[in-house]
């Protein structure tokens, strides 16, 4: 596909456990998901870290600021982040 990603821009669901990223935007695909995620602090500029996958592979656990959020890969796909290079 011809998505023009920024250099490191990936969706949150593509991070591996331990990897960090900074939220760039949340796609408009699902308005409620977007609203909820943003209200829970997943806003532009915040650093997130993928902690782990659930035992069955889905959902995923993400560190957002000072707390842990779990969400399905499906929803995580809407969150676009730039991978932090450490």
């Amino acid at each position, binding site marked *: 596909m011809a998505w023009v990603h920024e250099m490191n821009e990936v969706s949150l669901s593509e991070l591996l456990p331990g990897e960090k990223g900074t939220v760039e935007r949340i796609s408009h695909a699902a308005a409620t998901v977007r609203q*909820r995620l943003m209200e829970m602090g997943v806003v532009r500029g915040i650093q997130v870290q993928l902690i782990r996958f659930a*035992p069955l592979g889905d959902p995923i656990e993400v560190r957002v600021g000072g707390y842990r959020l779990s969400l399905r890969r499906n929803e995580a796909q809407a969150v676009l982040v730039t991978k932090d290079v450490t």
Partner: protein
Amino acid sequence: MSTSTVESVRVRTIAIIGNPNSGKTTLFNALTRLRQKVGNYPGVTVEKKEGRITFHDGSEASLLDLPGTYSLTANSPDEKIATDILLGRTAHTTAPDSVICVVDASNLERNLYLVSQIIDSHLPVVVALNMIDIANSEGIKIDFNALQQQLGVPVIPTIASRKMGIDELKKTIETTPKSNGVVRKWSVPEVFARECDELIDLLKNYHKVSEPLAFHEALDLLTTQTPSPHQLDRFSYELMEHVKKDHRRLDFLGIDRQSVVIEARYKWINNVCAIAVTQTKHADMSLSDKIDRVLTHKVWGFVFFFALMTVIFQSIFTWAILPMELIGDGFDLLGQQITRVMPEGDLRDLIVNGALAGVAAVVTFLPQILFLFLFLGLLEDTGYMARAAFIMDRAMSKVGLHGKSFIPLLSSFACAIPGIMATRTIESPKDRLVTMLVAPLMSCSARLPIYTLMIAAFIPSTSLFGILSLPALTMLSMYLLGLTAALTMAWLLKKTLLKSAPPVFIMELPRYKLPSAKTILLKMWERARLFLREAGTIILGVSIVLWFLATYPRLENGTASEQINQSFAGRAGHLIEPLIRPLGFDWKIGIGLIGSILQREVFVSTMGTIYNIKNADEESGTLSLKEQMQNDKDPVTGKPTFTVLTAICLMVYYVLAMQCLSTVAVMRRETNGWKWPLFQFGYMTMLAYSVTFLVFRVGLWIGGGA
């Protein structure tokens, strides 16, 4: 006039609001010192917790514990209630006089989002900065004065679980002014602000919306993607057209309406935190993380999960038996005493065989209910409950449900009523409905006495392969049958009647913590009381009615067996016998089925009533119900009434049938109508009938009917 003075003395109301797991309930308990009552909001079944708070000057106020919420943009019925009450949008209540906003200090940013929304409401608000002990241990230092200055409202540090800061909090609430009068400090692009002001004017002038609410409504209107039912209902066509134009203009200017306000608030929050908070150390891996490494591990996570479920079941089946037997023996003793001291007659009969039997049936349930709520309380309070949803979500999603449905379904193992009530946290109405519809298929504790009785009487207590006991295996099969039926029905409903997109799963995983004995005991007490009051009265009433039906009309002379045959109950049992014959049931079971439409566990006490009466003059009064059922023979054919197959069929029937009026009543309230409870009653009865029929036929074929 005296009436007018009564009316004018309105009790002040204070609302407590906060994110889930911020310590709201703990704070509420500390402030009210347990002087509280639990009820329901009119029209919806969101639990309403109200308590009394006494101030230092002796004055009192009513304290309202609102459901936990992350924001004032309602996603679930629970959150909607919290928002509506807070903003005074409900018909029955005005906005509270002041608000305590509980904030988890260890997670300040996200918690301040709600605070910022509440400050905008202009209600007098006090921030209870809770869990500062945890914040400290994580190296988060908060400058309270700076925070207070930045927010513009009083900030009181508290540790609710240790009752620290409660007095200061009370003092501060006492003296809060009528309005917080804080000037909004977060800012949005000028065009957006202009449209917003314009809308506020319209709302105030043409829709009689008062100031702080007008601001909230205006923001909602401008940021929404599709107008909510509330908005369409409340506002005129003209206004909605105006809003549409605003949307077009803002969209044209490239302003992201949905994110602009949220981002503005978070920007402000970041500034506040930069000033008031310092992070002194960075814990790389907290204790919670270490625990989660194991408990959400691919292998160990499931090992632990299933081990835990096994322990819970084992304990309910074994530990709860002892107190249950003690209670049963106690009531037997009491019955004998009454029989000794009272003269023979209808009254004695009524008391011993009607009322006492009913009370005993109710009370023997308590140990199980207490055990189950002990475990559910532990799961919830330690933080494991969210992990259970996390682990199980994938599996639940296979039938189209949400990880959050797992908790209500799990609770339904205790009782479908709290299970159904626990579905309130599920945001999507259709998913919530599906969960409610299948919840009563989970084997609740009310079925347990039936399983226990039937298994003890008819399943030989031998063991399979040396380790698995047949009775335990039978019990497990019943639970698995219920579970399978629930999941299959959920899948079916999601595919057909209640088709909808896969639900959204966005859930906080709270920190693990040591459970608080008080929180759990309080919950157990609340549930036990609710059971005794709501289910207990029904069971007692039914017991007495059933005693009456089984006793009258009286035969002048004749054996007890003829007596019950002639009674109203016997006639009803006979009446439905043709209908239940294909399931292998006779008229006595028929009576049991009729009686237990109200409440499953009544079946056992009905059987008790039937057999007690029957054997009253046969000198076998000391025989237990189990033995009497084993000995019971069909008077015509001489074959035993109950066989292993009948016992299994009966259990299968009870696994699947909706024999519980309280659940019907709860469903009616939760869904606001009779449609769904009737549907539920219908489909479950049909399911139970057909599956039992199948089992009976297959059983006969195999030869298990001998």
